[in-house]
């Protein structure tokens, strides 16, 4: 499991490779908060290479969403597979996040 960060124009793109769970959620949180502190405002988390997400991983996404918004920024999600889509629907987090089918559509949505 790992997180890689890249920049596409003015959007910080985070790829979640593997699981987003209690054992690694702090790493994701810190990486995004570091970018936010540097003044970045637009964030996209891409789940195309993600296995599963547990409740603490979902909690970190909620936390990041709040912190980014507090700083006047935006967080978008992309590439949820069917399982992850089900997870977001079950928890009603699909109503909280702007979710795109593809990375390209998510980037265009900013």
């Amino acid at each position, binding site marked *: *499991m790992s997180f890689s960060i890249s920049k596409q124009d003015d959007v910080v793109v985070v790829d979640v490779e*593997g*699981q987003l*769970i*209690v*054992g690694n959620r702090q790493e994701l949180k810190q990486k995004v908060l570091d970018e936010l502190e540097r003044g970045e405002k637009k964030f996209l988390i891409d789940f195309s290479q993600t*296995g*599963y*997400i*547990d*409740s*603490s991983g*979902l*909690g*970190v996404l*909620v*936390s990041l969403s*709040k912190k980014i918004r507090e700083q006047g920024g935006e967080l978008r999600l992309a590439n949820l597979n*069917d*399982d992850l889509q*089900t*997870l977001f629907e*079950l*928890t*009603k*987090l699909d*109503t*909280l996040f702007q979710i795109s089918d593809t990375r390209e559509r998510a980037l265009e949505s900013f």
Partner: protein
Amino acid sequence: MALPRVALDVEIPSDVKYIEEVVELATRQCRELHLPSHKCSLNLPVALSEALSNAILRGNAQGNGKYVRVTATVSDDAVVFDVADQGPDFDMIAERIDPTTPENVMREQGRGLFLMYRLMDHVEHIRDHGNVVRLTLRRE
């Protein structure tokens, strides 16, 4: 009808770094038993992760020298996972909240038990020298 058999029996220290490995072992069993694919890729990994997190972080409070044991028992119609810690009793029902209500959806915590109950066919809390959370997944 075949007798239930133990398909998995592992014991891990109280550290969340072991969760992924145990979930991977359980998921492999799930696939070998030809359970529906969403049960192996979503229901089991998430629910078992939650049960393990609870056992490590809350049950055992990450205590040194405390262990969490996971067993999987397979019968003709179900796979039953027992996640046992060595911690004090807790009231699982009382701690459940509905994280989908408008006042709770923005909360950062409180989805673990909800997901366990929603993703498993049956969840049971047994007190036996610690807590045992029993997760039942039907094979159909």
